[in-house]
């Protein structure tokens, strides 16, 4: 228990317990490990007292023998609280309640996707209700088509209201609602169509029944108990949400949230949940190969290593290109292999400089960057230049929670307990606290913003610097500009008024001045005694890690190759055509003469490779990635593929062995080498237990205890059951045998506890409900500001944006579905990618005699792109927005000046 908490003595079935005073009684009972049934209460959304499933008998004192029935989720645990969970009346009530809730519930568990991990099943068994007396006809509903992600089966609903509470109240959704009344209540859209909210996939976990289930899983369905799963980290943006990745028959079947009380909590975004299908793509590279312009010859691993040694390592100047989507270990091994001077971070200079700037601010600056979860605790927010819903989706969800903090204070002042969600919401009345947005155009968070302003990237930075001046002015003179209604004055005032102001920015506009302005604002708040926070979103899952290892960038490598300083290149998990202009990539690869690529999916770079080695994606690899917060996190290989796919570091280690006889024994040995060379990464060692970690003598099984079919699933190949593969790189095993208790927090492959088969079993892995996992939340922060840091403010070096005659400054627009390199290669996510467009202010369109939907041709450098226009009147004149990372825009380096012509 944290220090400083006031404790209360409570009695549960006459046994005394010490619990935090005023906490919710249901939560307390669950934290104490009792099996108490519930539906509508959710650890992140708290109590509404709607389902009546959590009833217990409450006694006034020890002399009260009768007691009264109360809903435990609507009570506080205070000194002397006396309840009985086991009282026969309470038991009968709970069993009767579930019988009533299930009057219309179909008998379809065997064909229900929720079966085997269903909270309703668990609660039914737990309540003791085991015989149905209802012989009447059940009411039935029509189901809706809800898009590619979610399946709808309304008959299974038990009216707990969790779905709408999550979707609307928590995530800001607008297109899911509850219709009708009594036994006809319907949860759905107003008409069939795609559920639009970016977090809709969480309904799968939030809904305690089989109403909302994972439609992508359905394409290759497997019961929970038949999945092989590993703790993993989402690779689809820089936040590094924790996930559980599951496999059967050599394919990834689904992704669930892996609770991390410091990072993503109970939720993940839809890009993370449904964006894994590329791992099963038929574009996967599964075998080493030797390639010429018109032939491709598969190679065995031995032959490949041999050939690579002869034809690549016989060359003199060999360089390596790392990648922000490859692990620290893979980048490190490549650097080892080619040598310090020959390794380059795999991103263009523009991006590299920004990421390095962010790292130095988080490291040498004086303001702390909070974790994703901590973002929810700030009470005033300013976002500079970042469309977080699309660049770092879960950050937007966190901002939505933080926005509720100030208005909620008023509810708490009325002594409404924090957990009483209905009452808190009633008193808040949908108000939001100070959230200011300064972006290039309208973004989705505008709907909760106190004020949103739009400006050119440079002007965003300039306004940022003005906010610093306003803060100084306000804090220096008691009668500062109190009355000014200007944007900068309001921002400064509200940030100074807040207890914990937070500045959010990022690299998405490729603008250094914005990053610096954000730092200056945070510094000035800190200098005014504020507990300020500063968050940057960066481009990719390991942008931070790769940049911590390497200063040099892709442009440096391109320059060197141009001058003839390269004889061969090794590229690890990086499609150069995604990063730079096609001509530049073509020239570079030609100038490198010999090309070895380690990659997971075929792409343009692999078509230019002499040798290709099949690298695992996050699903077939083990490694460490560093998120935007500087938190190093471990992800584990989920299963052993039947082909040659493996971690890039593993390949590179084998190559090193073949050329120099130096061989790291396993993953830990690679980490050891790495931290020896780079002491600033020393903490990576403690991110997760070593491979030789055992619970007793046992490894941690990736398979559940009731995993089925092991003896039969490969019988078509060999009737005798093969020996399970050995995992030398982690404490996890590829079997069902092993330690059955709660593993160390970074190594939890699935959540399960006796009686708790659904995701709700997370309660059993936490020190207290909603708190840290046993042993602390996973991940280690590598960057901490120090109090000695007297880092100076950045000078304002930007000029105001001025538009050019006949030219447009084209900036990137981001899309949760479309801007990420890999997730778009899965069919479900691809369905959600909007058609490509170029956005311009309506006035600019008018001047150019254009209207929405017209086709234009945009010319830049030597490129031409033909595309339809879309008006976006919030975008400043003279600026155009083009989606980043789409098929049509891949490789474009933003921002750029382009000429636009009607066609």
């Amino acid at each position, binding site marked *: 228990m944290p220090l400083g908490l006031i404790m209360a003595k409570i009695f549960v079935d006459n046994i005394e317990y010490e619990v935090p005073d005023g906490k919710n009684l249901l939560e307390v009972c669950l934290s104490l490990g009792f099996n108490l049934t519930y539906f509508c209460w959710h650890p992140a959304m708290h109590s509404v007292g709607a389902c009546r499933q959590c009833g217990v008998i409450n006694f006034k004192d020890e002399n009260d023998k009768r007691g009264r029935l109360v809903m435990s989720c609507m009570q506080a645990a205070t000194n002397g609280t006396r309840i009985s969970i086991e009282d026969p009346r309470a038991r009968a009530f709970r069993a009767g309640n579930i019988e009533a809730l299930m009057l219309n519930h179909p008998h379809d568990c065997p064909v229900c996707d929720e079966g085997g991990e269903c909270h309703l099943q668990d609660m039914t068994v737990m309540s003791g209700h085991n015989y149905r007396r209802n012989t009447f006809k059940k009411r039935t509903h029509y189901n809706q088509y809800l898009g590619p992600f979610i399946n709808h089966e309304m008959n299974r609903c038990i009216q707990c209201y969790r779905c709408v509470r999550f979707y609307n109240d928590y995530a800001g959704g607008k297109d899911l*609602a509850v*219709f*009708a*009344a009594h036994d006809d209540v319907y949860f759905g859209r107003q008409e069939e169509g795609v559920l639009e909210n970016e977090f809709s996939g969480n309904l799968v976990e939030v809904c305690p029944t089989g109403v909302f289930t994972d439609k992508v899983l359905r394409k290759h369905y497997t019961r929970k108990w038949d999945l092989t799963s590993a703790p993993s980290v989402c690779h689809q943006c820089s936040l590094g949400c924790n996930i559980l990745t599951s496999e059967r028959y050599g394919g990834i079947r689904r992704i669930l949230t892996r609770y991390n009380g410091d990072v993503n909590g109970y939720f993940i975004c839809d890009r993370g949940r449904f964006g894994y299908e590329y791992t099963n793509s038929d574009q996967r590279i599964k075998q080493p190969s030797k390639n010429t312009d018109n032939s491709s010859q598969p190679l065995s691993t031995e032959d490949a290593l041999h050939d690579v040694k002869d034809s690549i390592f016989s060359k003199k100047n060999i360089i390596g290109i790392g990648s922000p989507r490859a692990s620290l270990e893979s980048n490190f091994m490549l650097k080892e292999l080619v040598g310090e001077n020959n390794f380059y971070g795999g991103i263009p200079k523009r991006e590299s400089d920004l990421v390095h700037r962010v790292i130095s601010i988080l490291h040498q600056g004086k303001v702390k960057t909070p974790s994703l979860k901590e973002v929810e605790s700030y009470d005033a927010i300013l976002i500079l230049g970042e469309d977080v819903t699309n660049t770092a989706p879960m950050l937007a969800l966190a901002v939505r929670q933080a926005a509720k903090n100030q208005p909620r204070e008023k509810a708490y002042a009325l002594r409404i307990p924090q957990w009483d969600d209905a009452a808190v919401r009633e008193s808040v009345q949908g108000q939001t606290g100070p959230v200011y947005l300064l972006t290039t155009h309208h973004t989705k968070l505008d709907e909760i913003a106190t004020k949103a302003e739009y400006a050119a990237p440079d002007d965003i930075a300039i306004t940022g610097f003005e906010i610093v001046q306003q803060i100084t002015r306000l804090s220096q003179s008691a009668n500062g500009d109190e009355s000014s209604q200007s944007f900068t004055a309001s921002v400064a005032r509200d940030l100074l008024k807040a207890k914990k102001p937070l500045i959010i920015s990022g690299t998405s506009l490729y603008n250094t001045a914005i990053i610096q302005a954000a730092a200056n604002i945070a510094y000035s708040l800190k200098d005014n005694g504020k507990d300020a926070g500063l968050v940057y979103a960066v481009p990719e899952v390991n942008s931070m890690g790769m940049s911590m290892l390497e200063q040099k960038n892709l442009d440096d490598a391109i320059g060197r190759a141009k001058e003839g300083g390269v004889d061969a290149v090794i590229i690890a998990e990086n499609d150069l055509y995604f990063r730079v202009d096609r001509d530049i990539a073509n020239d570079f690869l030609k100038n490198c003469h010999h090309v070895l690529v380690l990659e997971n999916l075929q792409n343009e770079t692999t078509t230019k490779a002499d040798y290709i080695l099949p690298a695992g994606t996050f699903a077939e690899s083990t490694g460490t990635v560093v998120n935007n917060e500087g938190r190093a996190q471990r992800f584990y290989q989920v299963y052993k593929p039947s082909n040659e796919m493996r971690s890039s570091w593993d390949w590179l280690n084998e190559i090193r062995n073949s050329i120099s006889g130096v061989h790291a024994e396993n993953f830990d040995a690679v980490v050891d080498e790495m931290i020896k060379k780079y002491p600033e990464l020393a903490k990576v060692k403690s991110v997760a237990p070593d491979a030789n970690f055992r619970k007793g003598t046992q490894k941690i099984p990736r398979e559940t205890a009731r995993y089925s079919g092991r003896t039969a699933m490969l019988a078509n190949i060999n009737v005798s059951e093969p020996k399970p593969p050995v995992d030398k790189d982690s404490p996890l095993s590829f079997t069902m045998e092993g330690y059955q208790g709660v593993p160390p927090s970074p190594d939890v492959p699935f959540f399960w506890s006796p009686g708790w088969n659904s995701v709700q079993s997370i309660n059993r892995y936490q020190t207290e409900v909603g708190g840290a996992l046993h042993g602390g939340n996973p991940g280690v922060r590598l960057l901490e500001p120090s109090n000695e840091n007297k880092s100076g403010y950045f000078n304002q070096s930007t000029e105001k944006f001025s538009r050019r005659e006949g030219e447009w400054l084209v900036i990137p627009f981001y899309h949760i579905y479309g801007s990420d390199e890999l997730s778009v290669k899965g069919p479900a996510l691809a369905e959600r990618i909007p058609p490509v467009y170029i956005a311009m202010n309506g006035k600019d369109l008018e001047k150019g005699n254009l209207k929405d939907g017209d086709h234009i041709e945009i010319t830049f450098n030597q490129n031409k792109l033909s595309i339809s226009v879309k008006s976006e009147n919030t975008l400043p004149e003279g600026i155009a927005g083009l989606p980043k990372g789409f098929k049509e825009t891949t490789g474009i380096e933003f921002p750029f000046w382009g000429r636009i012509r009607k066609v």
Partner: protein
Amino acid sequence: MSVVFSEKKLNRVKELVSHYPDGKQKSALIPVLHLAQEENDGWLSVEWMDYVAGLLQMTPIEVYEVATFYSMLNTKPIGRYVFEVCQTGPCMIKGSDDIIAYIGEKLGIKPGETTKDGMFTLKKVECLGACGYAPMMQLGKNYREHLTKEKVDAIIEECRKEARQIKEN
């Protein structure tokens, strides 16, 4: 087809909205839906609901939530006479199930349906606060209490007669 309120009704809407604090214009939803229902033969079409949503600056889905919740708001066309039979506990104990079944049989419709000639609609509703006179129903502005099959027969006949008279005049 686009639907609009008359000037007079719009003023009434304004007046209703003024009962609530600024920015809480949504609170006037139910009375405004009643106004809309009056304009549209006693039921709310999607057009009317969307129009009301626009007037009160709400999303249409929020209006549908409310309109489908209350039995006093109809989202399908209704007949000239609407039998709103209470089905809550006390009425049920006193035989409302039988009454509902009887009306249904007699008129050839199920609860929620309207007879082909547009004369009658049968609805099940929740307690109307007349439990002492159970089983009961609401017909237009009046309560009909202590229902029996005979009484139901008489009520149906009474309605038919009234309708005939109106037609003749």
